[in-house]
Structures are given as structure tokens and as C-alpha cells.
């Protein structure tokens, strides 16, 4: 059979045809037991006459065991090789790192904490004296010492004595202003004989003793960083000043310190080795603190080898050109947060040759924070040579400040698996939202753990907009203009409600479908605009009430009110001086509510107060009598039905009472005609259609809409492709328009005469041809100059002291929101008698 298979293979048979021979072979067998079982099954099925001795002690079974073992071993290796070749499935750390490296991604090693330690006291054994001749030798001078009036002078004297001749206080080696803090760098004249690159001490931080090292510093690229450890260089201290006085955490003398331990290893390469890889096997080497130096035969610093991100070909030649010499090395993370140094290939970067010293700092592979005073009064003793060429010792006491960063653990392998491919995708540039989402993560998962970037707007957005997102999609926008206008306008609405008179559920149609029209915001606007003076009832005198302490939604007036309160009404409660609460009356199952006790929808903030105002609600829920009337009308004929919302003067709607307004069928023959835009009504026209499913009622009505318009300066971008969802309610957010009027330059006083003048309301220019005095007010026809919207507006009149006279019915102008809350005009006290909206 096998020969046949081979023949077929050579004859270029189809793969599937050739491998039909394997139908009896279990290809699901991968481990020893299943392969053994499959082999035995195969033999028992294929050669039942020739072999049936399937006991373990059989020689043939022993041979099968060996084959199964081999299969097991091969399948394991095959499986492992496959898994280890994909970042998502690789288990071996080395595999993960190698694949990440292939994508140009280097795992982030631990990042050691670093920051400033403030020098709280200084001592020297050098025989120096202050300007009064007092010896300062072996005297501890504390920073900002309230017991020593000369502390600053003494402090400076001691520091100055320890500095090199080229850097003295007021004459620093380098200076820099960083975030408003002045920084000056000074160099201590360390003794040649006992020179150290760092000074270490331990301090308890986050439950463990941590090793700190005070290090030499340099100012570079607007940063204060640790200088490369070079034994011939001298230790530095920094004088910082934030101009907040000596007690400030950022004023005084500081040393720069890091957590961890600095080590070095020397390497010698007698011949040039191309693409040399050197391993530093120490665990948890800091992500930043690796320096490679060329040294001479006595291991004295000769030159620095530049660290580059990548040592391959084009990048390498770029690096070597950019850095001016070919001494480049790339530092790569290997397992256990150790490092591999990759030297140049001898063509695009210098091949390793000669003596090298590698400095590296190891640190704790954990997250912790070094807080202010975690390092408390630790002592650093620095040998130095005084101006008299003799050796002395400067003793510094240091404490940590708030300017100390966290120690970060190394990036996890899970993070490498996740971020390396994404980082590759972004190609080290941030162009689209995805790039912004992933590239910052490559700094290390502990430094940035989560990023969410959203495409918001285009390049070149106006700098005048004070916002993050000019589309207003994700942030509020504030737009200023001078040509805005707010007006109300008629709003003709047509809705189609699918319903078949013959076999439809009339009750359901009336309850659920018709009310869709009745609760249309335009209709509500119309109701409040038309009934603005009737729907609002100011209670004079106001009515006292108390609240049930166990349920602060129950209001009890104690006495019967003159005005009944109905479900859906709004009430204005006065709870104290200038302390008002608006709430709506509860729409319960039983209506109406008694006129001495009723329930409101929100808890009353205080246990007593007075009811000031009642605003009649616009009822969108139909009561039983109303539903019955509409159903009867629908059943009666397919004529148009006019449903109007009118004052309740019908005796048939009083038992039980519904409220001050009712939805009623309009009797076209007997009732007064209805006027569009003044009466609240809807017209239902039935259209049976030519198919049963096309039957529908068309509802037409005229409402009012509140319009904000601007011809030029204020524009809204409307994009409805993706919804902005409220995190708390999970509902799509609706845009809200809040308008603030700014009364800037006002025209001269206009009063008492018929005026033909171009004038403004608020800051909106209008074309008022004339106005007519009307008692306490004046009425005029305004044509908004910019929008062309026509509106009949009322003036309010104030007295000479600027107090607005009490509005009468004809002088009140309202804006009413869709939910019925009114925003009455509130004039600001002003000496100008200027009409404003």
C-alpha cells in the first residue's frame, strides 16, 4: 500500500486522493497513549489473522510502544515549534522576546525610581570660619534653621569650601529653568584618591529596605539627568529655587538619586568581531541605566559607545552618521530582565574590538513609590580636597522630596504579546486613532496602562474654541456670536399611524398610538405659549405645607387649597429665603389627587414651606372617558376626527373629574371654529388604502417650535452617525442648547415715542418699524434683521430707577421648555430703559 502511495505521489496525484489511504489512521492521536491505542487499533483491524497478542509483555507491542513514544516526542516538538512561532501562543520567554525583537519591539525592563533628595544639613571637618570668625569645622549646619540666624551664610560657606575652583555659589557649572524652578549645578572637588561614581545608602520604602544611590548629574536637553558614570568626573549637587522661600520642598541644595545598585563588567576583545553579542546576565537591569564605554588597558575611561535602538543595516548607518562615530551598541532585553549588547557589524557600525566597560544599574522588579520623607535624614560622606590641597570630608544629610518618581516593575510577557504587534503596526508614528491608542503603551505597561483615543476633528481647528472637540461630540462647546436670534415659530407636523378600523385593536391604538402625537414637543410648546397666562397660577397668599418625614414626597397643606392640584401639574415650593424647588405632581393611578394632600415626584428638601405657584400640566395620558369617546368616534365612521385640548367645561368629564383641561372631540357643526397655532388640537384623517395593511390614520397638527438661528457666526455641526452614550444611564445623550445673553453696548434710551430706528434686543439687531405704547408696555412688530423671522414682541417697561414694573398679562414673554418648565424673562437691574429679551 505504501509503495502505491509513493507511486501516486510521484505521479502527481491529487493530495486528497493519495491520502485516502489514511482513513483508518487516527490523526487525532498526538500523545503516547492515544498513538499507542491508534497503532494497536490499526494492527488489530488490518492484520487480525497475523497478530492478536496485544498483551504488554508481547515483543511486538513493545516495539509499538517505542513507535508511539517516538510519535509522542515528534508531535510534542512539532506542536511546540508551531506554538512558539506565534506571539499569541508562545510560552517560552525567549521566544516571546525574539519575536518581539523581530517586530522591533524591546521589552521594557524595570524602571528605577529617581528624583531629588534635599540636603537638610551639612558638616565639614575643614577648618573654615564664618565672617565673624566663628569656626564652622565639625559643626552641623541645618537648612532653614530657626535657631541659627546665620544658617544660610554658614551653609553656603561649607558648600563653597567643598566645591571645585571653577564652580562656586553664584557661579555654577550649568543652569536651567525648569517648570519655573531655577536649577544651578555645582561640582564638589572630590579627592582623586577616593573618588566614587555614586554614594549609596538604604532606606525603608514600601515595606522593604531599598538601596539608593546619589549620583552625578548633568543638565541635558532641558532635563536633569544622571550623568554617565565616569570615574574621572566629580560629584555634583544642585541648587534649586522656586522662589517660595527656604521652607519650600523645591528650594535649597539637592542631590539627584536613584534606587538600585550600579555595577560594571569589563570585556576585552583582542580581535575585531563582527556583530558581537555580549550578555550581561544580572537580573532586573534598569531600563534606562546602561552605559557602554571604551576603556584603555588600565580600565580608564576613553570614550562612550552610543546606545541606539537598532543595530541593523540602514538604521545602523544612520546612527553612525548621526552620532559622528561608529561606536554604537543596541541594548536588548532578554529573559529575567537581563540584557544583550549587540555591537556593530564592522561596516555600518564599528565592530567590537579592544577594552570595554559596561555600567548597569539593577533595581527591584516591583512597583512602589518613594514619597516625601520616605528617605529621612540619610547621611552621605564625600571626601574632597579643599583649597589648601588637603583632604577633608563633607557630610550631607539628605531627605526625599515630593519630586521623586515611582519605581516601575518590568513589562510583563503578557503585555509584550499584546503590545509588540500593535507597536509594529503603528511604526513609531502616531497618525490615526489606533496609533494613538497603542504607541504610548510601548513605554511600558506600568507607565501607561490604558489609553483610549477617539477621532474627533480635523487638523487646523480654530484656536479660538476653548474645547477639546470642536464638533461638540464629546465635549461641550461654547460659541460666541453677535447675530444669534431666538424665536418661536409655527411647526406643522404630520404623522402616520398604522391602524385598520375594521379589525384593529382600537383601545391599543388610542392608548399607545394617538398619544405619540399628543406628546409631541411642538404641541406642548403650543399649549404653554397659548396658555402661558392661564396655566400659571401664582397662589396669593401662598399656601403653607408640611412634608411627611417618613416619605418626603407626600405634601400636606393642612387646609383645602382654593386651587386644586392635578396630576402632571408643576408646583413651585418656597423652602426658605431664595430657596425654591420645582417638582411635578405625581401621576398616579387615581386621579385627581385631593387638594389638601398630594404626592410629588421628587423628595422635598425641607419638611415645611409654602406653595408659591402651580403651573398646569399638559396631560398626554388619556383618561377612560376620553378613550371611550375617541373609540366611539372611530367606530362610528371614517370621517376626520379633531381632538382638542381645552378647558374642562363639560359636565360629562367631571365624574370622576379629570382635571382643568381635557382632550375632547371637536364638534365642527356646533363648536366655535378652531384656529391653527392658537388652539391645541390634532386632526386624524383615515385612509383605508388599497390593501388592508395600508390602512392608517394621518395626524396633522400645528405646534410651536423654539428656534435658535444665526446666519453667519454660529454654526452647529450635526453628525448623527455614531451616538454618544451616557456612561451612567447607557442612553444616547441628547444635545442641549443653553443660551446666555451678553448685553454689551446698548443703544440710547428708547421710550415714549413712536420710533423708527434700527435697534437691538439683547445683542440681536432687529428691524422695528414702529412700536405702540400699550399701558405699562409697548408692543411692536419686529423683524429679526439677520434671520428674517417675524415675531410680535412685547416691550417691558421699567421705572426710572431701573425696577421693572409688574408685568401684566399682555407684557409677559415666556420661553417654555418641552417639559413645561418656564424660563421667564428676568431683567437685570439697569439704569437704561432698554428693552431686552
Amino acid at each position: 500500500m505504501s509503495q502505491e502511495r509513493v507511486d501516486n505521489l510521484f505521479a502527481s496525484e491529487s493530495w486528497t486522493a493519495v491520502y485516502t489511504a489514511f482513513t483508518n489512521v487516527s490523526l487525532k492521536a498526538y500523545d503516547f497513549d492515544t498513538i499507542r491505542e491508534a497503532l494497536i487499533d490499526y494492527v488489530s483491524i488490518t492484520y487480525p489473522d497475523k497478530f492478536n497478542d496485544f498483551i504488554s509483555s508481547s515483543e511486538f507491542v513493545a516495539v509499538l510502544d517505542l513507535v508511539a513514544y517516538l510519535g509522542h516526542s515528534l508531535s510534542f516538538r512539532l506542536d511546540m515549534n508551531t506554538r512558539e512561532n506565534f506571539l499569541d501562543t508562545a510560552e517560552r520567554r525567549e521566544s516571546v522576546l525574539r519575536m518581539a525583537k523581530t517586530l522591533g519591539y524591546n521589552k521594557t525592563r524595570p524602571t528605577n525610581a529617581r528624583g531629588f533628595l534635599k540636603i537638610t544639613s551639612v558638616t565639614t571637618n575643614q577648618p573654615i570660619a564664618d565672617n565673624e570668625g566663628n569656626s564652622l569645622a565639625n559643626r552641623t549646619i541645618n537648612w532653614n534653621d530657626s535657631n541659627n540666624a546665620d544658617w544660610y551664610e554658614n551653609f553656603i560657606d561649607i558648600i563653597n569650601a567643598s566645591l571645585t575652583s571653577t564652580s562656586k555659589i553664584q557661579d555654577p557649572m550649568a543652569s536651567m529653568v525648569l517648570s519655573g524652578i531655577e536649577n544651578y549645578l555645582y561640582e564638589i572637588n572630590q579627592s582623586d584618591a577616593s573618588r566614587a561614581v555614586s554614594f549609596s545608602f538604604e532606606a525603608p520604602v514600601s515595606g522593604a529596605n531599598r538601596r539608593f544611590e546619589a549620583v552625578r548629574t548633568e543638565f541635558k536637553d532641558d532635563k536633569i539627568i544622571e550623568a554617565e558614570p565616569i570615574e574621572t568626573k566629580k560629584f555634583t549637587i544642585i541648587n534649586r529655587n522656586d522662589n517660595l522661600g527656604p521652607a519650600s520642598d523645591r528650594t535649597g541644595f539637592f542631590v539627584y538619586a536613584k534606587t538600585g545598585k550600579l555595577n560594571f563588567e569589563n570585556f576585552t576583545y583582542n580581535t575585531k568581531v563582527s556583530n558581537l553579542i555580549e550578555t550581561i546576565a544580572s537580573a532586573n537591569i534598569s531600563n534606562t541605566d546602561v552605559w557602554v564605554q571604551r576603556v584603555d588597558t588600565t580600565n580608564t575611561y576613553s570614550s562612550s559607545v552610543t546606545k541606539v535602538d537598532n543595530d541593523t543595516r540602514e538604521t545602523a548607518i544612520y546612527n553612525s552618521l548621526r552620532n559622528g562615530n561608529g561606536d554604537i551598541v543596541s541594548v536588548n532585553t532578554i529573559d529575567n530582565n537581563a540584557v544583550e549588547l549587540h555591537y556593530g557589524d564592522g561596516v555600518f557600525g564599528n565592530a567590537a574590538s579592544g577594552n570595554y566597560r559596561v555600567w548597569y544599574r539593577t533595581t527591584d522588579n516591583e512597583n512602589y513609590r518613594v514619597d516625601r520623607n520616605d528617605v529621612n535624614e540619610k547621611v552621605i560622606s564625600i571626601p574632597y580636597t579643599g583649597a589648601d590641597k588637603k583632604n577633608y570630608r563633607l557630610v550631607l544629610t539628605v531627605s526625599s522630596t515630593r519630586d521623586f518618581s515611582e519605581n516601575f516593575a518590568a513589562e510583563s510577557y503578557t503585555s509584550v504579546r499584546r503590545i509588540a504587534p500593535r507597536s509594529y503596526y503603528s511604526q513609531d508614528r502616531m497618525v490615526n486613532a489606533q496609533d494613538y491608542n497603542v504607541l504610548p503603551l510601548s513605554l511600558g505597561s506600568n507607565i501607561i496602562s490604558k489609553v483610549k483615543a477617539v477621532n474627533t476633528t480635523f487638523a487646523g481647528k480654530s484656536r479660538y474654541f476653548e474645547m477639546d472637540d470642536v464638533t461638540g461630540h464629546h465635549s461641550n462647546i461654547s460659541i460666541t456670536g453677535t447675530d444669534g436670534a431666538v424665536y418661536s415659530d409655527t411647526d406643522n407636523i404630520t404623522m402616520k399611524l398604522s391602524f385598520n378600523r375594521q379589525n384593529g385593536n382600537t383601545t391599543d391604538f388610542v392608548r399607545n398610538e394617538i398619544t405619540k402625537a399628543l406628546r409631541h414637543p411642538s404641541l406642548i410648546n403650543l399649549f404653554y405659549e397659548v396658555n402661558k397666562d392661564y396655566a400659571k397660577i401664582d397662589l396669593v397668599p401662598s399656601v403653607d405645607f408640611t412634608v411627611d418625614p417618613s416619605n418626603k414626597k407626600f405634601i400636606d397643606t393642612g387646609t383645602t387649597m382654593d386651587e386644586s392640584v392635578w396630576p402632571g401639574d408643576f408646583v413651585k415650593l418656597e423652602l426658605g429665603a431664595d430657596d425654591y424647588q420645582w417638582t411635578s405632581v405625581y401621576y398616579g393611578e387615581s386621579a385627581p389627587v385631593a387638594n389638601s394632600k398630594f404626592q410629588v415626584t421628587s423628595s422635598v428638601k425641607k419638611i415645611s414651606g409654602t406653595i408659591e405657584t402651580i403651573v398646569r400640566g399638559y396631560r398626554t395620558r388619556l383618561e377612560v372617558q376620553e378613550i371611550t369617546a375617541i373609540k366611539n368616534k372611530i367606530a362610528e365612521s371614517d370621517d376626520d376626527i379633531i381632538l382638542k385640548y381645552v378647558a374642562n367645561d363639560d359636565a360629562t368629564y367631571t365624574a370622576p373629574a379629570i382635571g382643568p383641561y381635557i382632550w375632547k372631540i371637536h364638534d365642527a357643526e356646533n363648536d366655535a371654529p378652531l384656529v391653527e397655532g392658537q388652539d391645541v388640537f390634532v386632526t386624524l384623517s383615515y385612509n383605508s388604502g388599497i390593501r388592508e395593511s395600508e390602512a392608517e390614520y394621518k395626524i396633522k397638527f400645528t405646534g410651536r417650535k423654539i428656534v435658535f438661528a444665526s446666519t453667519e457666526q454660529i454654526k452647529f455641526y450635526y453628525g448623527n452617525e455614531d451616538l454618544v452614550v451616557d456612561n451612567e444611564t447607557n442612553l444616547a445623550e441628547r444635545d442641549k442648547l443653553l443660551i446666555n445673553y451678553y448685553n454689551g453696548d446698548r443703544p440710547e434710551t428708547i421710550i415714549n415715542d413712536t420710533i423708527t430706528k434700527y435697534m437691538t434686543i439683547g445683542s440681536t439687531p432687529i428691524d422695528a418699524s414702529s412700536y405702540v405704547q400699550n399701558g405699562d408696555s409697548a408692543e411692536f412688530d419686529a423683524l429679526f434683521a439677520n434671520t428674517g423671522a417675524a415675531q410680535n414682541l412685547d416691550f417691558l417697561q421699567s421705572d426710572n430707577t431701573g425696577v421693572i414694573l409688574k408685568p401684566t398679562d399682555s407684557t409677559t414673554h415666556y420661553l417654555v421648555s418641552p417639559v413645561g418648565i418656564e424660563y421667564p424673562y428676568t431683567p437685570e437691574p439697569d439704569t437704561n430703559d432698554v428693552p431686552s429679551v
Partner: protein
Amino acid sequence: MAIRFTGFSTKNKSAINHILTGKDLIIEDLMNHIMTRKGERVMMPTFGSIVHEMIFEPLTPEVKSIIEEDIRSIIEQEPRVTLDFIKVSDTDHTLTVSVTVSIVNEDETVTLEIDLERE
């Protein structure tokens, strides 16, 4: 009807074309098991016998008992035979285990003499 077993052996001289059947096959399998050191068989560490480890031990009653127990458990794993008799003895250079078994369904008794030389 009793099943007649057909098996395979590369070393048994009775096997023609390496095919062995019946009583010869059973005895061959039994000897294979006894002559396999425990731990020797791939992926089956408990398969085999410990008598090889015992041949240099002084043949005390305890050791003899251990050897007998080991042989007995091996024979119990072979369903085609029942154990009749075990005898463990030794000379200066040889440990001899004599096992007499009856072959199931065949009215026949076989005695195996297993000599393990101390060299």
C-alpha cells in the same frame, strides 16, 4: 472455542518467520515480562520485574518472599496462565526461580526455570 493467540518474536528459535503461536507464545510473553527490568520499558515505568536487582542480595527469607511476590504479581497480569508453584533457590553463582504454571483452557502445565547469573 478457545482463542488461539498469534504473536511475534525475533529471538525465539521456535518462531518460523518470527511467528509464534499458542503455548510457545504465552511462555515467550511471560519470559519477556520477567526478563524486563522494572523501569526499562518506555513510558511504562512499573512494567517488569525486580528480580534482577535482587540477585546480589543474600537470599534471606525476606528477599525470597519479595522475589516470590514479584513473580506472582507478574503471573497474575498474564490472564492466559494460572500459577501453580514458585520456588526460589540459589547457588554460588546463580539465582534460580522455578515457576510452574498451568495454561488456561489447555490441560497443560509448564515449568519455567529462570536462572539469573551473578557475574
